[in-house]
């Protein structure tokens, strides 16, 4: 971080100055939050229009308003858009991004340029997802795109390719944002802001960040397999080759169920802010609320197969997943009761944010209760894939998540813009959307119970479904009208709304202690936190005298506040990644251009500011004493572990199911690979030596050990190239059998990681030669690279054990 390039005045809002260029190159978390917010608003309108078109089609039986083809595209893109481009990014990119640094007393997120990069990648991924509309080849296999319908034989055309590529790209953006924000929460908390003093919103989104890190890798792996099947003719999901299309369902729901909580957790967090503020009482049972949030996150990773009760997993698996699914109801119930207990005995202020919170309580409870129904496998056999499920998840995601997000919008809007949204229009917005919502989705429970399957573009007129569907369509239009009211409210108050002032709601948390909209640097002085509800306690006194706390930081002059400078590289890297993906799909010629753009922009960004990393204090977390860069790498490694775990699990599941060709038993050269494994392990040792030398500022030896590490890494890669080549000669290609595809994919991705590691080390070596390490405290860069290098080596130890050792043991 370096000094702000221009003079800043004390109260200047983050929204002012810079022009269009300033927004394109911004690294301010608040501006990036606003960008996310606007983008999701646009996609909300697109997804909403798709929903309206579907409802018109279904208003009458056997309607012909939309063709089957168009209808299938509509429901696929409605689901994909609302989940990946609206609810998740509005929670992650808008609310968490904007609010978390303000609530923990930080000036920005841990990695401001990475934050911008996450946004641009998300945006480009979203555009790729929707690009199919231009040629009427929009994705058309449902938001969960069940294999093997998505294989090229059943889905020729680019529809599924746009879907796969768009999700892969935007997924990269989500994981980056989660790494960044998790590192922010861990390391950027203001002095005294312990975990048990954090606002519960921060707790909730922190669990969400962890879930994104562990849930996205299985989806990424599933999508990579799908792409390989479509582009390279592998058979990851093809029953004819001994594989099973159910692999996709496991990978997808391993992502998909945590994804539900990824969408709902920010809503829980917003509830835990709005309810206490508008009840004018501290949150009831704070510690239990925090732990139940963590427990929900933990449990959500163990329930994925409750989406698969009908696939025939057998009674034992059905029962196990039924029980874990029911368990989630307990911490969720605790949250509902605690919110009610917070209201009990308070002074309830009936403002629009609170109205939405109340609606959330009832509607989300209804969604949760219908969820308890299909947690029972026998009931699920009737309800799954029927409109009952459509009703259920809309109660959870619309009546639940979206209502809380709307409440959060009314709640934080004055902080974002400095002006309050209009209360009267807010009430209109509230009542129309609540009525419209129930009118639309309650009848769907009945439709499902009366036998209407999901994803049908038409239904016969003699099933008793006609008036229910008409009712639902009317409700959908009422909701559309309500969204229009919201837009009018935003438009009207943009310039003429009541000025909010710093603290319009008598707030409890730190964001209300600074001006609205906040200045670019958020806090002139980093606050000192002495209790929960820190700002409230500052206003109304502490219940117990605050315990001994660190001395408050000396007030800083504004010109000494260091803020992240703008950067153009995030948008360039995102463009490079998107170009590579699109080239892969349509014009192979631009793949290389895209890759070059990505790699060179990334390297250029690393060395963009000559003073970067110069101040050790700036990157040390006030609450932990850890270096933020290392925390970030640890978060990333957590996510990578799940990526490799998914690849390794697939290898093990498909082991021994080959129908033809050479397999592990016949082809592996164990002695050779044992040697290259030894070489790779040695490279970890030399990496440690390099790290140690740089820590001692012995750059000569540091450089030497770095060089040795690079050479050892290259030897390992050489061994792998030799191995692949010899297997190829023995007739094992990527398409030969399941062993071929799982082996090449898993080992290949590991090799790619080693190759990236070698590039990073080479860049560092070059920087070292150029004297970059002369600036104090830059050896952390070597340490961060070393963490990654050791991780990749450990992954190899696992792969080596699973593939080579197991085979050697089997032979012995």
């Amino acid at each position: 971080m370096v000094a702000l390039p221009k003079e800043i005045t004390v109260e200047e809002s983050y929204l002012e100055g810079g022009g269009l260029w300033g927004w394109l190159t911004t690294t301010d978390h608040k501006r990036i939050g606003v960008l996310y917010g606007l983008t999701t608003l646009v996609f909300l309108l697109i997804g909403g229009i798709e929903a309206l078109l579907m409802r018109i089609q279904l208003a009458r039986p056997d309607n012909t308003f939309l063709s089957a083809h168009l209808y299938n595209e509509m429901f696929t893109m409605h689901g994909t858009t609302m989940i990946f481009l609206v609810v998740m990014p509005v929670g992650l990119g808008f609310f968490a991004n904007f609010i978390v640094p303000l609530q923990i007393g930080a000036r920005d997120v841990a990695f401001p340029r990475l934050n911008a990069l996450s946004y641009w990648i998300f945006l480009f991924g979203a555009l790729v997802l929707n690009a199919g509309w231009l040629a009427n080849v929009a994705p058309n296999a449902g938001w969960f795109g069940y294999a093997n319908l998505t294989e090229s034989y059943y889905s020729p055309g680019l529809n599924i390719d746009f879907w796969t590529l768009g999700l892969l790209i935007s997924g990269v953006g989500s994981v980056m944002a989660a790494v960044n924000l998790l590192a922010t929460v861990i390391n950027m908390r203001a002095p005294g802001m312990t975990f048990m003093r954090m606002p519960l919103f921060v707790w909730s989104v922190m669990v969400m960040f962890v879930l994104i890190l562990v849930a996205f890798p299985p989806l990424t792996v599933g999508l990579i397999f799908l792409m390989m099947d479509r582009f390279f003719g592998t058979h990851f999901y093809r029953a004819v080759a001994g594989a099973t299309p159910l692999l996709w369902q496991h990978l997808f729901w391993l992502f998909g169920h945590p994804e539900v909580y990824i969408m709902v957790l920010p809503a829980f967090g917003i509830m835990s802010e709005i309810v206490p503020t508008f009840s004018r009482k501290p949150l009831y049972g704070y510690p239990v609320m925090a732990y139940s949030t963590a427990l929900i996150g933990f449990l959500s990773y163990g329930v994925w197969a409750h989406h698969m009760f009908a696939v025939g997993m057998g009674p034992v698996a059905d029962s196990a997943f039924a029980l874990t699914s029911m368990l989630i109801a307990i911490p969720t119930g605790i949250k509902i009761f605690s919110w009610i207990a917070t209201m009990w005995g308070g002074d309830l202020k009936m403002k629009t944010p609170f109205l939405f919170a109340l609606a959330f309580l009832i509607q989300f409870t209804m969604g949760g209760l219908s969820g308890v129904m299909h947690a029972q496998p026998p009931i699920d056999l009737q309800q799954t894939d029927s409109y009952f499920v459509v009703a259920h998840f809309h109660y959870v995601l619309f009546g639940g998540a979206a209502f809380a997000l709307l409440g959060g919008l009314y709640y934080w809007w004055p902080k974002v813009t400095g002006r309050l949204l209009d209360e009267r229009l807010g009430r209109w917005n509230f009542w129309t959307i609540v009525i419209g919502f129930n009118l639309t989705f309650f009848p769907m429970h009945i439709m499902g119970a009366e036998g209407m399957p999901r994803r049908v573009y038409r239904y016969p007129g003699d099933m008793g479904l006609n008036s229910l569907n008409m009712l639902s369509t009317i409700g959908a239009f009422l909701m559309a009208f309500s969204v229009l009211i919201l837009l009018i409210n935003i438009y009207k108050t943009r310039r003429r709304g009541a000025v909010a002032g710093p603290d319009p709601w008598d707030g409890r948390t730190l964001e209300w202690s600074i001006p609205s909209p906040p200045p670019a640097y958020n806090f002139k002085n980093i606050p000192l936190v002495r209790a929960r509800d820190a700002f409230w306690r500052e206003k109304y006194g502490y219940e117990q005298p605050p315990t001994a706390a660190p001395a408050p930081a000396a007030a800083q002059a504004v010109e000494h506040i260091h803020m992240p400078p703008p950067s153009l590289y995030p948008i360039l890297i995102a463009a490079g990644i998107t170009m590579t993906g699109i080239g892969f799909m349509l014009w192979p010629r631009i793949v290389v251009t895209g890759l070059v753009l990505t790699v060179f922009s990334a390297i250029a960004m690393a060395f963009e500011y000559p003073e970067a990393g110069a101040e050790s204090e700036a990157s040390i977390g006030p609450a932990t004493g850890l270096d933020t860069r290392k925390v970030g790498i640890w978060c990333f490694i957590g996510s990578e572990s799940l990526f490799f775990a998914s690849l390794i699990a697939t290898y093990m599941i498909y082991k021994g199911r080959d129908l033809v060709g050479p397999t592990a038993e016949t082809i592996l050269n164990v002695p050779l690979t044992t040697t290259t494994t030894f070489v790779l392990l040695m490279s970890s040792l030399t990496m440690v030596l390099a790290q140690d030398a740089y820590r001692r500022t012995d750059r000569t030896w540091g450089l030497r050990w770095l060089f040795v590490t690079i050479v050892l890494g290259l030897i390992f890669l050489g061994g792998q190239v030799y191995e692949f080549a010899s297997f190829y000669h023995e007739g094992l290609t990527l398409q030969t059998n399941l062993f071929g595809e799982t082996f090449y994919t898993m080992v290949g991705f590991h090799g790619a990681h080693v190759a990236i590691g070698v590039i990073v080390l080479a860049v560092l070596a070059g920087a070292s030669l150029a004297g970059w390490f002369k600036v104090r405290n830059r050896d952390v860069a070597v340490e961060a690279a070393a963490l990654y290098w050791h991780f990749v080596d450990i992954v190899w130890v696992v792969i080596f054990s699973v593939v080579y050792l197991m085979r050697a043991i089997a032979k012995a």
Partner: protein
Amino acid sequence: MSSASIRAAIHTLLAGVFAALLSGCDPRRFPGSTFAPRSDMAHWVEAVYFEVIGWDGLILILICVLVFLCLTRFSTRASEDQPKPPPPHPEYLGLEVAWTVGPALILLFIAVPSLRIVFRTQQSAPPTNALIINVTAHQWWWQFDYPSMGIHTANEVHIPVDRPVRFLLNSTDVIHSFWIPAMGGKRDVVPGHVNELTFTPQVTGEYIGECAEFCGLSHANMRFRVFVQSRVAFDDWRANQAGGPRLPTGGPARAGEQVYVTSACTTCHAIAGYSSGYIGPNLTHFASRTTFAGSTLRNTPQNLAAWLENPQALKPGAQMPALGLRGTELNDLVAYLESLK
């Protein structure tokens, strides 16, 4: 509004909801209802269903009452809306234990009967007297084969009442799902993985079946019908189905027979003794079925003629090509097919 009229309105509303709920179980108005159980399995499922609905209802009422009480007792008037320090906020351990243990107990009450049904409906050994029917799902129609009876039919399945039936589910293309709401549930049809669904139908009648898993363009047009028949009626049907096709007695039907054997129909369809195609439905007793085209069209000569002229117009993506038959040829073929009782 007086309190009496409010009460009257609430009564009317409740009565309306109750009537609506009851009529929801009326299979004549709602032939696809999951609340009109007609098999042993469907009854078991419904029992679990009602238990959960009961508990869910209680919890929802509790939450609504609590929220309502909060609103009536603790709302602040706008005039008093001044910043002030928070009121006392005691916390009670007992309360927190109660709302943790209470729901856990309720879940236990639900789980025990529910999991018992899970095991009862998925027994590895079928009842010895079960009628085995092989179901093969295609994009977008259902093939039914009775291996013990030599019957091959499509989109309409006949089963005898009060005898266990075991459907073995196969797919030749993508994943489908075999759903008969009145019989208690669905089971996915997964390529490369034979699933099964076993139950004993208890009431004779015609029931709706549907594909419940999205399977491509015409997923909505992949329906079927289940005829639960008395022992006597089933035996009649079986005797007819097991025999060969009726021979055309003359006139257009006989001319249609010639159209059939000389056209491309034979590539994909089977009529015993004439052709043995297996891409499309077996037509040996086509006219004995009440519907065709994934059970989306009534089996009438008009519908059949429209279908033969342009299958894609009635079922988008249908694999059957338009054969370009016109005029007499078309009518003859329709007459022939409609003679295959």
